């Protein structure tokens, strides 16, 4: 191949893969909106989870606020702390939408594609394997964002949360870096789930609740560090899940100074760097996991074929 044909092929490949991403994202974006039950799962369920925690935190706060012996200054501090707690829960509930989408939808995607018979058509197409995974992720992200925004806005309005955004750029950077890392994780899981088949389902079910807890979707995860013994171990393990640090950073950026700054894990800047590293690691892992899977499929002839 001459140098000229090599350079002229590069834009061609890029164009092809961009089209492939859009094509693959399309059924998620359009198709999912045709299925109203999604609205329930993706928007209403997180709100219910949020409400339960909000009521608990409000009830705890009321014990202080209704106590005549507590000073006005302490009451004001309690109001601020409660606002940050409830706001943290709403943010957590918003991110849960993405986490559930990654854990249940992204991770099982390739497995279902195989069952439907799509996977071998995808593998036969000239698009890059990352375009296939990327399309899945973009579709999932888009669809989930609609729900997440609903959850966020409803939460902020219903529970009258006061947000104090000091560094919007950093906040946006953290949010998108977290999404990339989360969906990178989903892309990796997708290949692993296909490899492991149904057993992986049980893993998802098993992981769901513990990760809700350790990632601090409903409370500041840094609090775990104050739990004696296993608390720090859990917290360290949880930082491998991009949502943990992402949430922590976002909370710091909208509730600066909350709880005397004692419950944060790292500074938002450090957390952003770690999330970016996680994102790169997951994307690279996803690429190699799928390449390995494809090789295995071509060699053993069972992973992409529907009937075997």
């Amino acid at each position, binding site marked *: 191949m001459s140098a000229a044909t090599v350079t002229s092929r590069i834009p061609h490949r890029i164009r092809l893969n961009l089209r492939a991403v859009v094509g693959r994202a399309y059924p998620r974006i359009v198709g999912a909106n045709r*299925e109203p039950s999604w609205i329930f799962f993706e928007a209403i369920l997180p709100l219910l989870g949020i409400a339960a925690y909000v009521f608990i935190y409000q009830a705890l706060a009321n014990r202080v606020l209704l106590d005549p012996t507590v000073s006005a200054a302490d009451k004001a501090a309690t109001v601020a702390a409660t606002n940050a707690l409830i706001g943290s829960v709403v943010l957590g509930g918003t991110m849960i939408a993405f986490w559930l989408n990654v854990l249940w939808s992204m991770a099982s995607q390739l497995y279902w594609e195989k069952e439907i018979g799509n996977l071998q058509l995808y593998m*036969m197409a000239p*698009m890059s394997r990352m375009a296939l995974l990327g399309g899945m992720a973009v579709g999932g992200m888009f669809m989930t964002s609609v729900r997440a925004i609903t959850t966020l806005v409803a939460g902020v309005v219903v529970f009258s949360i006061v947000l104090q955004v000091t560094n919007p750029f950093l906040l946006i950077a953290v949010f998108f870096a977290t999404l990339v890392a989360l969906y990178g994780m989903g892309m990796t899981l997708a290949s692993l789930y296909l490899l492991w088949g149904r057993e992986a389902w049980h893993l998802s079910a098993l992981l769901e609740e513990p990760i809700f807890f350790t990632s601090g979707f409903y409370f500041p995860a840094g609090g775990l560090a104050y739990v004696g013994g296993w608390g720090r171990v859990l917290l360290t393990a949880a930082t491998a899940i991009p949502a943990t640090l992402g949430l922590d950073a976002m909370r710091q950026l909208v509730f600066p100074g909350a709880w005397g700054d004692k419950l944060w894990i790292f500074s938002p800047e450090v957390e952003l760097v770690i999330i970016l590293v996680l994102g790169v690691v997951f994307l690279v892992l996803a690429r190699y996991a799928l390449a390995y899977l494809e090789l295995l499929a*071509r060699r053993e*002839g069972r992973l992409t074929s529907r009937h075997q």
Partner: protein
Amino acid sequence: MEFAIETKDLVRVFKPSRKLLKRKKNPNGEGGSGEGPVTALDRVTTQIRQGELFGLLGPNGAGKTTLIKILCTLLLPTSGQAWVAGHDISKDPFPIRERINMVSGGETSGYGLLTTRENVWMFSQFYGVNSKVAKARIDELLHIFGLWDKRDAKVRTLSSGQRQKMNMIRGFVTDPDILFLDEPTLGLDVNASRVIREYVEAWVRKQKGKTVLLTTHYMAEADQMCDRIAIIDRGRILACDTPENLKRTIRHDTTFRLEVDTLRSASAFSGMKGVKNFSSKDDASKNTTSLTFILEDESAVSDILSAVQAQGAKIHYLQKSEPTLEDVFISMVGRGLE
């Protein structure tokens, strides 16, 4: 590039899955065909020219799908080599993928929530087809395949014939140079089959350099459509020629078809003088056995009839007929295609 598709000593062996191995250890488990490695392709060597409509005719389990999967870069051969559009299928799959497409019968690909149009469009994007171009082609093909009314119908509401037409459109929309069709009319009604066959033929004949590799176990389909046919059984190519030449191999023979009461055993016919080969198939619902004989010597008919009567079976029907491709197959392997 001389050949669109070339294979050299292709071998594909499937090792039994771990599940099957476990079952084997279990003394109560089923044995039989599931045991041991399966040689799906056994030293397959073929050359398919550009512009050819090439058929692969063989019964179920012959290895047709395995060969197609290898050529579509979905499966690696155990040994041997193959080139598609001049590229090595093992080493260089991406340039091949840009120039091929594949449709198989009874496939249920796509998303039920999308419409016919959207579904085909989505697949076209995986090949980087310009969106406008893709949409224009899709509309044209929807008209040709008589699916225009269903253009905005959700895929999950389509009948199997309509679905298969949509799958065919998916195959043509990327304008491949080489199209693989794996039993494209499997289980379809006469009408849908005809539309598909006619379009495939026209597509190859009216354009230069388009190649189709079609697999089928319907001999009439292979006979009607294909320029050349390879007859495949148990992973081996037994013969490869034009339909006329294949039929000519048995031109000195006579084909007799018989339907008789269910026979206890057909072994009496093997080795009978004048019988080159035969196939026998029981029809449990009618309580009959259908027999096809390829006779080197027509006088063998009387021996056959006495052998049938010796079993006390009544003869329902006896016919001498023109040789078909299935008869060629029977003369080679002593079994029918279905």
